[in-house]
């Protein structure tokens, strides 16, 4: 086997000079991102900032124009078993003929050999993950009977059985109920406390400070990144969102404001 020198092995995610373009338009422009292991990081930015593209590129789903990516020091294709990905719920057809436990077992497919079928062990792992997300009663259900929040829990269970070190989640709180949002956040924080790195594309600026401890603000370029207290400032947010930001809390004098994009305020 070819041994490659690991590059920046102490970082969970290391991105250098990454540029991605769709149809000739740059979506990400020359970005550097470093995320240490064991944090729960949010990736925020306005629509079209390239948040989802960033994750898809890291996972090798989108080919970059330039730059390179390391996960725990390995290039993405060698780190496949170290990462888990939770796509946006809306990216799949929930009328697909399959059961809840079946979807969760898909998380083990990457660990099975090419022609091996999932067996009893995979099923047991899937059931354990389902009870961790409070969905064990739904194991045999058809997936089209699930609510939005339940769908998200199933996807999370699937990511959990992957035994990954780094979890990427694309808008996991979009369109789920408050109870599920709290449960998902608690679960993610628990995983972080076990030493895993959680990287979440997030859209709700108001909850960033409560849920996360690391922040990457993106708008085609990286506006700012680092621990929440240092990065979550009015200035940085204004830089990313431009005039579309409305600061709700005048007392905080722009240091750590409760910020909401103005589209939401209107």
């Amino acid at each position, binding site marked *: 086997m070819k041994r490659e020198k690991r590059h920046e092995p102490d970082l969970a995610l290391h991105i250098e000079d990454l540029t991605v373009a769709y*149809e000739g338009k740059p979506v990400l422009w020359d970005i550097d991102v470093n995320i240490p292991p064991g944090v729960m990081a949010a990736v925020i930015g306005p629509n079209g900032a390239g948040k989802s593209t960033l994750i*898809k590129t890291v*996972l*090798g*789903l989108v080919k970059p124009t330039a730059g390179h990516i390391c996960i725990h020091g390995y290039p993405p*294709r060698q780190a*496949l078993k170290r*990462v*888990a*990905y939770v*796509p946006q719920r809306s*990216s*799949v*057809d929930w009328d*697909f*003929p*399959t*059961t809840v436990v*079946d*979807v969760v077992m*898909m998380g083990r*497919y*990457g660990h*099975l050999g*090419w*022609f091996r*079928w*999932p067996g009893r062990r995979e099923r047991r792992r899937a059931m354990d993950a389902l009870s961790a997300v409070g969905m064990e009663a739904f194991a045999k259900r*058809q997936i*089209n009977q699930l609510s939005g929040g339940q769908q998200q829990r199933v996807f999370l269970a*699937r990511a959990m059985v*992957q035994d990954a070190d780094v979890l*990427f989640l694309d808008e996991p709180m979009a369109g789920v109920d408050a109870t599920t949002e709290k449960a998902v956040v608690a679960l993610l924080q628990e995983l972080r406390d076990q030493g895993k790195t959680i990287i979440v594309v997030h859209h709700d600026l108001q909850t960033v400070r409560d849920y996360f401890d690391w922040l990457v603000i993106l708008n085609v370029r990286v506006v700012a990144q680092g621990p929440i207290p240092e990065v979550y400032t009015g200035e940085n947010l204004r830089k990313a969102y431009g005039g579309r930001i409305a600061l709700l809390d005048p007392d905080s004098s722009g240091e750590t404001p409760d910020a909401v994009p103005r589209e939401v305020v209107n």
Partner: protein
Amino acid sequence: MLELLGNHTVQTVTLGAVLLGMVSGLLGSFAVLRQQSLLGDTLAHAALPGVCIGFLIAGTRHLGWIMAGALVTAVIAALFVQVVTRYSRIKMDAGLGAALSVSFAVGVVLLTYIQGHASASQGGLDSFLFGQAAATRPSDLWFMGGVTLAAMALVALMWKQLKLVTFDPLFAGSIGLRVGVLETLLTAMIALAVVVGLQMVGVVLMTAMVIAPPVAARQWVSRLEHMVFLAMLMGVISGVVGVLLSAGVAHLATGPVVVLVASALVALSLLLAPGRGVLWSWLKLWREQRSIGQRQMLVTLHKLAEHHEDPYYPVERSMLDSFYGVATSHILRRLQARGFVVPASHMRQEGPHWALTDAGHNEARQELERMDWNQAEV
């Protein structure tokens, strides 16, 4: 009808229909679930120029060459759609339509070229347009059987990859599956199924063979393995019933009869399949609406009785009618049958009056509690 099965031609055609039903049900399931049903349509039309090219190469109606040619042009058309939709702003529908119509046009050009230039042995090429099941030869069956077996083996071996790529391609990519390769493989296999069916049911009707059996199957089952199996069965049923009907009844063209049988199976499944069938949901909706009407009525009567401090307060039906905006007598009669209301007489008898029974008051109280509980839940 049974003596028909003794007929050699009918035997061959029936066996061909069985194989066609199996392969199109199997591969069509994946096409329908990937929401690429109309890909089969495009592939079928795009096979026409390949049929002609195969004929031109072989110089005669040699099935092997013709099918190889058809497969090649069908796959080229599919790749064209993929490239055009990925690298330009043209959407899937226009990409499919453009590939379909242009390749068919090229096919027509080649067909007329053959008619004008090649030797007279071109007879039978037209059968690929509209299908001519009776032209199926025993040697064709070996070919069709081989394709069917290969497709089944491939799906069995790669089951979990194909399932994952069909359900969640993004996730499949994230665990390292070659999504593009698998999708192209699926497309090529659908092209293969289409090519196999061409001479039996023809270009246009092959579209239905790829779509109808899987859609019908999906209504009855909710697991992929069951759906694929049932789709193959539905394909076989449509094929065999269609062949026997067309041969036995009026010597009708086989392709259209097969497709109409498949369409009838879809209609039946959409209406009747337990749980998913449209009739079942209507029934459920109707029952729910009826029960809501009854529950509302109980609560209304209960509250009126409370307001008037008379548990047996008689309410005039015409008042209820105008309150609900619809005739309420059928609701009241059903509640009466359940023992919750009784007709009541009033001092001034202007019209029918109704009052709650004790059982009715109990039921209404329970209903109110349920509503409170539901509200607390929210």
